[in-house]
């Protein structure tokens, strides 16, 4: 498929990029790696009068440390993240999550900012507009008022499938957003609206400039586990990031975030509460995973039923916690 016509701009600063986006009043899109946007333009499910290429903006391509914060520029590619010796040494779950995305080709192109803002997905949406028009009435995500995935569904059930966001959320990351009103810092969770049809709570003029990750304490251990059909190039069926802050056998703090279970990343709050300020045991992890099973109701995706995915939430929350714990044991050995 070929791309439609569009105007094309190459701003050199973030402010210029924001002005261009603002001038086009929602009809211009920022272009970074292009791996999410260009297929959607080809399918004509996203329409843009103009593309604003962000790749020429300097200062957004580095990973740097500042006191207790690790700053990752929004244009750092996932390939650079998985190869970063700093991330591999200090935040290996983040490097692993970047590695878990797509293929080497996609990771060399896709940027962290773009990955965090990737569109929600649905079996009934990710096709060409012709396919959509010929077969079904327009769904919520295509601007209509029905859901084909959940019969009689009253809202869009498209699923957020990013691999990196849950790890960043478990680490308490914040994002520096530049918009027409200036700069603002947001918790990463605040950029997600939870709505399938419009997954982001950012305006069309907002751009993510940097991702700020608080450096985890030396006694924090984390893991990202991804359930997928193939070893390569697959979105997660369920993805779980877990970070445990430990002191000996005691878990002082726990953060567990899931991806691919809803229209935004989801925190397993009750499971975290079970782990927090408790002594580690296999039974404790089991109990936490059962809490996650109770509190999380996944949207069906990838052709799997919500019931099945709920079972997988139990399995993969358990695996993520065990992996984090084993990482701690490995570090002590």
């Amino acid at each position, binding site marked *: *498929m*070929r*791309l*439609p*016509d*569009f*105007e*094309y701009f*190459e701003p050199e600063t973030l402010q210029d990029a924001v002005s261009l986006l603002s001038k086009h009043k929602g009809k211009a899109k920022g*272009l970074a790696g*292009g*791996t999410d946007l*260009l*297929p959607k333009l*080809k*399918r004509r499910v996203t329409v843009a009068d103009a*593309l604003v*290429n962000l*790749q020429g903006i300097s200062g957004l391509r580095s990973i740097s440390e500042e006191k207790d914060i690790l700053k990752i520029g929004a244009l750092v590619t996932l*390939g650079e993240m998985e190869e970063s010796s700093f991330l591999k040494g200090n935040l290996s779950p983040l490097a692993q999550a970047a590695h878990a995305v*797509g*293929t*080497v*080709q*996609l990771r*060399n*192109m896709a940027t962290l900012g773009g990955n965090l803002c990737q569109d929600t997905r649905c079996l009934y949406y990710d096709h060409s507009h012709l396919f959509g028009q010929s077969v079904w009435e327009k769904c919520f995500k295509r601007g209509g008022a029905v859901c084909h995935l959940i019969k009689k569904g009253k809202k869009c059930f498209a699923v957020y499938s990013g691999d990196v966001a849950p790890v960043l959320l478990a680490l308490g990351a914040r994002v520096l957003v530049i918009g027409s009103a200036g700069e603002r810092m947001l918790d990463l969770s605040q950029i997600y609206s939870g709505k399938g049809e419009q997954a982001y709570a950012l305006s069309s003029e907002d751009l993510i400039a940097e991702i700020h990750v608080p450096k985890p304490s030396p006694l924090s251990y984390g893991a990202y586990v991804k359930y997928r059909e193939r*070893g*390569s*190039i697959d979105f997660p069926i369920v993805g779980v990031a877990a970070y445990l802050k430990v002191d000996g056998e005691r878990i002082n703090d726990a953060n567990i975030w899931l991806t691919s279970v809803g229209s935004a990343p989801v925190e397993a709050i009750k499971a975290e509460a079970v782990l927090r300020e408790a002594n580690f045991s296999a039974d404790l992890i089991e109990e936490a995973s059962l809490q996650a099973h109770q509190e999380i109701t996944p949207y069906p995706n990838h052709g799997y039923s919500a019931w099945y995915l709920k079972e997988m939430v139990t399995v993969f929350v358990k695996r993520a916690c065990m992996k984090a714990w084993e990482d701690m044991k490995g570090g002590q050995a």
Partner: protein
Amino acid sequence: MKRLVELKVNGEAYEVAAAPKQTLLEVLRDELHLTGTKEGCGMGSCCACTVLIDGKPALSCLILAVTAKGKEITTIEGLSKGEGLHPLQQAFHEKGAVQCGYCTPGMIMTAKSFLDRNPDPTKDEVKEAISGNLCRCTGYKKIVEAILSVKQP
């Protein structure tokens, strides 16, 4: 509206008039007539269109040609020097790693970049490296054998 774009492909500088909507793949094939690079899905799922950008494999179907200016682009045509085949091409030929041949240019470019970074890989590393490149004919076995046969002693 078309604009002039300077592209450096296989060590040669080209000045091409390209519309912003033209992908690098379209410009390589239709303007520069370097038809070795193939279009498969056009959506980033099959990696048939893989070329090297500054030495790293990337998908030419999802890169606008106007954004590739100033970058070192290598296509399958740029691999062999002179009339002989590149060792990877020779190995694919000798090991029977080519059937219909459509995935071969992308597969070889991915393998080239991989071997440049990891000259003595294991079989599993090779399998992971080419895991994005889809081949519907060979079953991958001979492709893996061909890549392993090229690894440095």
